[in-house]
């Protein structure tokens, strides 16, 4: 099973590395809500980062519930996606970063998205950390494996 663990963790990492943008799922005011966000992640997979201005609906939602889901996938908008594409949903609590944690996060995030430099510096922008609890990896159309994140 150790081998399976490694294989799944590796597949998760490869998929995260292959994509820059994911779909953020939040919930607020009685309704689910989805947004596209640029994300980055720690090499140990324990934490993902994304940024948003505080006036957005997604920010209000995630402050309200404290939890989010992020979908990352490699579909190509072709019929072959059915058998070729993989998708990853990561769930966990979310928090706005401050102080040294924000500095660390900003470094990781900017390394991945250098063009967001100005956006991230704005006082109205929040840098958020998704503390990954588990990843759901979907491959081969229907196979679903769960990777629990060790803390």
């Amino acid at each position, binding site marked *: *099973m150790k081998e*399976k*663990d490694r294989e799944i963790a590796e597949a998760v990492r490869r998929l995260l590395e292959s994509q820059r943008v994911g779909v953020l799922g939040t919930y607020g005011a009685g309704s689910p809500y989805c947004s596209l966000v640029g994300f980055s992640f720690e090499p140990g997979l324990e934490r993902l980062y994304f940024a948003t201005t505080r006036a957005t609906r997604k920010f209000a939602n995630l402050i309200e519930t404290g939890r989010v889901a992020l979908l990352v996938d490699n579909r190509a908008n072709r019929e072959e996606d*059915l058998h070729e594409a993989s998708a990853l949903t990561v769930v966990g609590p979310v928090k706005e970063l401050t102080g040294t944690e924000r500095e660390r996060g900003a470094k990781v995030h900017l390394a991945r998205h250098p063009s967001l430099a100005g956006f991230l510096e704005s006082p109205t922008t929040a840098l958020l950390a998704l503390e990954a609890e588990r990843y759901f990896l979907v491959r081969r*159309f*229907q*196979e679903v494996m*769960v990777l*629990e*994140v060790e803390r």
Partner: protein
Amino acid sequence: MKFLVPFDRLTEEDRRRVGGKAWALSRLAREGFSVPRGAVLPVEAYRAYVGPTGLRERILLELNRKPFESMRWEEMWDAALRIRSLFLKTPLPAPLSAALRGEIERTFGDRSVAVRSSAPGEDSAGASFAGLHESFLNVRGADSILEHVRLVWASLWSDGALLYRQELKLDVAESAMAVVIQELAEGERSGVAFSKSPVEEEVSLVEAVWGLNQGLVDGTVAPDRWVLDRSSGTLRQHIGAERLDAVRPAPRGTRKVPLPPELRDRPPLEEGEVVRVWTLSMEAENRFGCPQDVEWTFLGERPFLLQARPVTTGTRGEAGSRAWNLSLRRSFENLKLLREKIERTLIPALVKEAEDLSGVQLQSLEDDQLEKVLETREEALARWTKVYWDEFIPFAHGARLFGQVYNDRLKPEDPFRFIDLLRPEKMVGTNRNARLEEAADRLRQDPGLRASLAAFRESRAETSAAQCFLEAVSSDLGKDTDLVLDGPETLRALAGFLLEMAERHASRKPSGESREELERAFLDRFGEEERRFAEELLDLARASYRLRDEDNIHLGRIQRMRDEARAEAARRRGEASAGEAPRSPRPEPSRVRPRQLVGQPAGPGLARGTARVVGSREDLLGFKAGEILVCDAIDPNMTFVVPLCAGIVERRGGMLVHGAIIAREYGLPCVTGVPDATALIRSGDTLTVDGYLGIVVVHDQG
């Protein structure tokens, strides 16, 4: 768009889109060889069919349920059958159909044609797909031609072709098929020729039969064979055949007919004609620049070339010879011979050997005698295991062949419905289950006996009524099952098991059409003159299916005796029982857990229940009614728990593996071919088994 291209209009640019066979034929025609008139449907026609209909993606979904390289050969069979069924049930898009019909009518009218595969990559110097894709002879009229074109396209995904691609690691997503349509040369004498023998450098070979070439190519008609000196064309040797039959055109397709007596004594070719054929093959070699393997036929006095491809000497030693041996398309005649050998010789010998080996009291042997017995049993097991793979397993193709014929004729919604028609009235495994069911029935009707059994199980009280009953059941079941072991613990386990059985209703039998109705529907699809073939094929397929049960049981006996001897030897050496290695998987705590696992839908239905991962006999006897059986591979000795199951999940894949057969027998949802099933699923997990889609959902894992 115009699809059909006549041979003489093909140019160098067309080469990749028409496949090796069409290309070679067009070159032969342009180089002045006599070739029957014909045309090719390039790969674009295939793509215009599989793209818009969604077939292309459905095929890829089918082949990507698990990593292609880890599919077992049986799973390839199943996938191939499902894919073929998709081709049979998916009509051509109307515009494509109209266009093709018009072109075919204009080119061929009502003339009889051959419809042959010509896949790009096939017949190239590096790879030999020889015989893996299908060809059809004596097809007439646009509708029938189009139907056979679809079958040729489907054969791109035949089990043999899939296996071959797996071996050569070819990309399945890029596969496409062109089709040659060629006027049928109703030759009186036909054959093949190798300008250079695949095994001997300095000689050429010519083989010939009376009638059409098909009998020679599929191995049902033995050819006369000539060996010639490659440099001079001098005849070195003629090996005559026992000339009994010829393949000739029939109202639909072709058929094998007995040769008239006057032809039996005559070789199909005179010596001068052998040399003419050899000369043709050498000319083809000169034009194409490498040794050629050609098919030819005589129309009157004139030899025509039907096909030319490179002799694949390089690959025949490796992948080539493997593909040759593995040739999954065993013909009907071939299988009939195999059946006779298995039923008359092999199985009786296997049964007798098991009997002979069993008459030994291991405990009373001296050490050196035991060593000898162990050696004998190891040898017997190795020998019979080889027979199992070489003879019994290939005979399973009988059921496959039937499945294909059944699906071609009846186009059923479920491509595996034919299995219901093959199911015997009684199998060894289900016989035993019937006896267990009888015992459970007695318990249902006799509360006193039930209470006595419960007491025996719980309090370990020695109640004679219970013990008497259990011993009777044991002896009724016979010695050769995993269920029956020595010692009181086993009787207690048996008590528990029977009480579980008694608590639920008698096992369900699948409803639906009866065997008789299915049989009638099948035979009705055959006209008078094909009727005998249909009946014989059904009989053969039933024998093939039955053997899947019996060979396992007989081989299992020898294996058990070997294990016993090993265990006894280990005991004397003072080791822990080696034959009883702990088989129950004990997974380590893991960060990864399954949520939804994908296998093959092997028994329709939906079940939810608690998983019991079975590795040992003890696991089996502790089985509770309503649990889901999760195992590596069900063997016939395990099937007694099936009536208690709510569903079955098996690591080993295939529709004709035991688990799938027995699940169908009891109408249970079943998913087979789930990779790592026994490692990923743990006893106690809550599972949903979706036998329609081949999915196992793991809800809670402890």
